[in-house]
């Protein structure tokens, strides 16, 4: 049901030409459309019933995210309603939690995670940004990269060091800070796939005591649990991208004629399509596995399966997008053709919350922990 509704909405309100116009506006964001998606109830999906969501079942969100992937949909949905809401759901305490989750689900609040730093790459332990306690406040100092839709965010979830040294996995805490807090400044940028991303500078930002959410110094295990959910949703979105790119190529090789025949009648082309098709199937299976992991598994088991899925799907999705361009020939390089824009999208999705290589290495490390 969600799939049909989402598909219809995106087909009508987000065709390729509209998308290209929207990503080229100043903010890359359409308030009216955001309002409409809030009214459709999509932003309730990722959090559990207790907070007035449908039931927090990853399956529902995955269906929606796959549809986003199919339509190459760009919006702050993932950063706010998935990552932001999940982190708050898992880590925050009442009553602030319910209030914030409501604001996210209804649309007025857009929360963006500011957890990575230039030197950290995808390693969250490697955090320099500090939060020093003084009186009733914390003073935040440092800078963050990869802050999605920082240009329209209302709040930031900031990962900062409350104790320990730069590479320690302990000593980290999460703060929820409104963006108009004094001392926060931004460099806003466009991303290759038409989204927006910011570098955030924190200069003696005075955060209220209650902006600390979750356990002080011990944020990482819970943060990682929230991010596992988010990563599983990225996996679903990538399978949607794979579906669309595959269908585009299939249609193209059926209709493109060279040497007096459709190029799809050539064996070498058929074999390439078959390989792409098989990659789609493998990715779909691993996406279901990622969803199962966050629904049914915990701890190391969940971590391993989520990383396995992100590593596998990231690789397959990029390979398929490259193949899709190649099989289109020069047409595939054209700005007016959707296919290249899907490559940009999977390049971004692969990189978000750890690229395939990062998750491959994480999987190895988790396997070592698993066996000892």
């Amino acid at each position: 049901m969600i799939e049909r509704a989402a598909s219809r909405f995106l087909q009508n309100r987000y065709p390729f030409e509209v998308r290209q116009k929207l990503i080229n506006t100043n903010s890359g964001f359409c308030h009216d459309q955001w309002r409409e998606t809030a009214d459709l109830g999509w932003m309730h999906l990722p959090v559990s019933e207790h907070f007035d969501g449908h039931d927090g079942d990853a399956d529902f969100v995955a269906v929606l995210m796959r549809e986003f992937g199919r339509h190459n949909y760009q919006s702050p949905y993932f950063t706010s309603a998935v990552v932001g809401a999940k982190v708050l759901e898992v880590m925050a305490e009442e009553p602030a939690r319910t209030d914030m989750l409501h604001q996210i689900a209804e649309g007025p609040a857009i929360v963006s995670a500011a957890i990575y730093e230039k030197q950290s790459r995808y390693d969250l332990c490697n955090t320099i940004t500090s939060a020093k306690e003084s009186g009733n406040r914390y003073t935040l100092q440092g800078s963050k990269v990869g802050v999605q839709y920082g240009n329209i965010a209302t709040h930031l979830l900031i990962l900062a060091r409350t104790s320990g040294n730069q590479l320690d996995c302990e000593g980290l805490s999460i703060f929820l800070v409104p963006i108009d807090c004094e001392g926060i400044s931004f460099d806003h940028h466009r991303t290759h796939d038409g989204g927006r991303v910011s570098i955030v500078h924190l200069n003696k930002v005075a955060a209220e005591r209650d902006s600390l959410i979750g356990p002080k110094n011990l944020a990482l295990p819970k943060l990682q649990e929230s991010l596992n959910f988010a990563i599983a949703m990225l996996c679903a979105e990538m399978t949607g991208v794979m579906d669309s790119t595959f269908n585009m190529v299939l249609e193209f090789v059926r209709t493109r004629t060279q040497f007096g025949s459709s190029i799809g009648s050539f064996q070498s082309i058929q074999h390439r399509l078959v390989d792409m098709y098989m990659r789609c199937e493998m990715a779909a299976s691993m996406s279901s596995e990622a969803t199962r992991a966050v629904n049914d598994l915990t701890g190391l088991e969940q971590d391993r399966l989520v990383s396995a899925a992100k590593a596998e799907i990231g690789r397959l999705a990029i390979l398929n997008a490259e193949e899709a361009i190649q099989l289109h020939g020069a047409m595939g390089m054209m700005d007016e053709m959707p296919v290249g824009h899907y490559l940009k999208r999977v390049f971004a999705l692969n990189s978000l919350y750890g690229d395939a290589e990062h998750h491959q290495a994480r999987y190895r490390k988790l396997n070592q922990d698993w066996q000892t």
Partner: protein
Amino acid sequence: MLNSPPFSSELEEFRGTVRTFIRENLPDNIRKMVAVEQMDLPREAQARWHRILRDRGGWCCPSWPSQYGGPQWNDAQQYIFEQELALNDAPRLMIYGVGMLGPTLFKYGSESQKQTILPDILDANTFWCQGFSEPNSGSDLASLKCEAQRVGDEYVINGSKIWTSEAHIADWIFGLFRTGKGARKQQGITFLMIDLSGSGITIDPLLLFEGTHEVNQVYFEDVRVPVANRVGVEDDGWEIGKYLLGLERFGTAEVSRTKASLERLRRIAHSEVPGGSRLIDDASFAEQFDRLEISLHALEMTERRFLLDENTSKSLGAEASMLKVRGTEIQCDVFRLTARAGAHLSQIDLPRDQIDSDLNTPYSLGHTARNYFNYRKTPIYSGSNEIQRNIVAKAALGL
């Protein structure tokens, strides 16, 4: 880096001379464009560098004989010169005029064509582009339809050419046009040179999906071309086209360009980020990097064998195709790995003029991903790698 075997001491001395000249004379603003892997240089930049090389003794046209202003170099000298250009971030030579039309005219052109056309290429007064592909004739090039109808001592051209690189900065186009219908589609094709400023010509830009304007569609409507602008025999232009495509495919291996790109990635990977670890210490990255370095060395030695070994036949049909396939595959792999290097910061899409020119950190903003997208064209252009494999199967394996 794996060092390739040195050439003779005379040739290595030649390399030193060439290298010194390039390093001392390449304008810094041009070097920077090449160093961020920009392939589509503005006309002014191309012409400026071309003339600097011309003034050194015709170095702008390394394959040309001295009677037309070239340096009269042997194969090894040309090879070394192009290596040094690439390794020192100098622009690519002007492929259409210098690399393709020049040699075509030496072989097939009339004396008066040589006299009128070659000097303007040598002086970078005339920029050329190439009109081969058409909307429905890509891989199946011989099916081309753009019509040249003979009317008295003129041809009247109707139709269009597509994916025409640099047409928007070019003065003339050369290409293949349909003059007749033979039993085979390869018959009835004629090689013509056309002034782009003539009436009836429209050039529409076609943007690539990462934003650059490199290719165009060129429309011809009743464009009149003197018969004197024909090269070779009417209806027999396919042979010239094949010769030309062979020339083009050699350049497209871009071995030394990719070596330079890989060196840039090496510097990035070895750079220390305050508080971070070096990328080269990431085992998965290092493995991929090393694999590319080894593959590139294999390609370089193969190219050297094909181009310079006297025992290899000079017809070079399948050889050029093999170099093109492997060259562009490795090139794309290098750009993909480089785009990965910046992690989150690779995602940022900055306009070209805002690119951080400090290229020695993984965190120069975003142009690495843009290059990755842009260079996806290389396995497609100049005869897709699929077509190249067909050629190898036929020419080398007799299949």
